[in-house]
């Protein structure tokens, strides 16, 4: 009951935000929502299947570049189709990459995903004619619901239609993931996370389910990546760089991978903390490094873990 209340309050706050908050903070919500989608997917792999990917920026990159390529090279500006194309492209790449990676666990899985991320990063950097090299490509303002929103200034577009479009995508992604983790499939993933040997003995095909989880998380990352490209207006290879993969793992840890909403909280705190710290202190990575160290040592459950005792079980233990 309390969980539902908190959810409703958060949802109302998100919907009402553009009406009350300064435009600057509203635009900060855009990367939060994009990362929110990415992290929901990443945590299916991390928190529910027990696999830590250090290469998921690869799929953020695929999503972002799908949007940039489609809008600038093909004049295809419908955001709904861009998201679909991003998801499809990610699935096509994730199918073979995942099939290979899920045969390994722990650090080997992490390193292999990292390796694929580096390969893709280099590809973006070197295939200049297709990707624009290190300068990247422009992401033109996409149409939403068939409307071009021509009359809107860039800011008005972002804090108006694009904001609510992002809210809708995040809400849909959350709803679908909520169903996934509560499905028979989700239960199978958790058995694999806890004890692969026992899961196999119960007839759960460990590599196959890990592969499914990998595919779903890749699609989520690409959809989030495509959402992320619009506010920036430009995509470049750093999106796919391994430090970016590290950042999203950090967000999951910050919020807490053991809970369904933890990663969303992590994304929110990360974005706003980064913004605050950067405005007063140029070495924000120093602060974040310290936060990460404190987190791992004193609060391995992340922020959600700290609140867990006072939170209703449904929220804290998704």
């Amino acid at each position, binding site marked *: 009951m309390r969980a539902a209340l908190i959810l409703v309050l958060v949802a109302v706050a998100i919907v009402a935000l553009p009406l009350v908050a300064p435009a600057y903070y509203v635009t900060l919500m855009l990367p939060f929502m994009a990362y929110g989608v990415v992290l929901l997917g990443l945590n299916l792999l991390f928190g529910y299947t027990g696999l830590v990917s250090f290469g998921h920026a690869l799929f953020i990159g695929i999503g972002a570049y799908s949007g940039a390529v489609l809008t600038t090279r093909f004049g295809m500006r419908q955001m709904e189709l861009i998201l679909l194309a991003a998801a499809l492209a990610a699935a096509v790449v994730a199918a073979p990459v995942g099939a290979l990676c899920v045969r390994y666990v722990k650090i080997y899985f992490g390193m292999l995903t990292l390796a694929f991320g580096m390969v893709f990063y280099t590809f973006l950097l070197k295939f200049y004619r297709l990707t624009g090299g290190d300068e990247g490509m422009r992401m033109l303002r996409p149409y939403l619901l068939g409307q071009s929103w021509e009359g809107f200034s860039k800011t008005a577009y972002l804090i108006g239609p694009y904001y609510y479009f992002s809210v809708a995508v995040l809400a849909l992604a959350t709803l*679908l993931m909520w*169903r*996934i983790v*509560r*499905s*028979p*499939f*989700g*239960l*199978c993933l*958790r*058995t694999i*996370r*806890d*004890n692969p*040997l*026992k*899961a*196999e*003995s*119960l*007839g*759960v*095909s460990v590599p196959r*389910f890990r592969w*499914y989880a990998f595919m*779903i998380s890749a699609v989520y990352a690409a959809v989030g990546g495509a959402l992320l490209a619009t506010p920036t207006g430009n995509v470049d290879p750093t999106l796919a760089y391994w430090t970016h993969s590290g950042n999203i793992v950090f967000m999951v840890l910050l919020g807490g991978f053991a809970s369904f909403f933890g990663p969303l909280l992590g994304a929110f705190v990360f974005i706003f903390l980064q913004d605050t710290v950067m405005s007063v202190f140029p070495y924000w990575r120093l602060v974040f490094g310290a936060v990460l160290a404190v987190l791992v040592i004193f609060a391995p459950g992340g922020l959600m873990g700290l609140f867990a005792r006072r939170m209703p079980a449904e929220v804290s233990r998704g």
Partner: protein
Amino acid sequence: MILEARNVRRLYGAFVALDGVSLSVREGEFVSIIGPNGAGKSTLINVLTGVLAPSGGSVRFKDRDIGGIGAVTLTRLGMARSFQLVQIFPELTVLETLQAAVVSRLGLGSRFFASLAGDGRVQREALEVAALFNLHEKAHTPTRELPQGDKKLLDVASAFALKPEIILLDEPTSGVSTADKHAVMEILVGAAKRMGLRAIIQVEHDMDIVFGYSDRIIALHQGKVLADATPAQIEADAQVMDMVVGRRRGATIPAPHPALSPEGRGRSSKPSPPEGERAG
């Protein structure tokens, strides 16, 4: 004949772990595999459950070669197992553990968006198994918080939840206090009967359990079958008793447990307390 191993050899490099083992398990049998450490019991279990491929010979389950086919496929064919070292899902509840087995058996694992909580059949079957194993009151307890004996029971219960035709139990009472061993075996044999299992194979060190419940005992020694006979015959064989059991048992021979033997079906499942000396 449900399960049959013919002349199975298994080598680890130059070491011969199994040296021409032949055995068969028939409908309704409770078969115990015994032997000192290093006799090849673990290797035999792994070969019989399709985890290891035999280096020579064959293993057939329901007339199908299962050499090295892997746990997942074998589960689907109708064989389940439990482990010597207790294997659980620490973060899952008792009920979720059993649901996982039911989901797997019904092939529902690829239902990405279906509601698990809303699947009446999965819920019902998981609760039924929990009740059979006296775990229903702890259905919502996280597995990691269970006492050791209940963890062991849950490991076995989840294998039963697969509704296998044959089950292979690797030391089902190891780690269970001596006082609880018979209670665990009673639950187990009772559940097997209720669920219509066709055979049970166990590896066990506790000779009271072995002699009290088996229809047949297979004694392994240095990778070979030393004896394959009824408890009474084993008991009468001084050489086997010395080599495998390691001591003489008391003069009285406990009657085998009637639960699974075909002629015993329908009889009272009251345990026949083993009268031999207690295992230390």
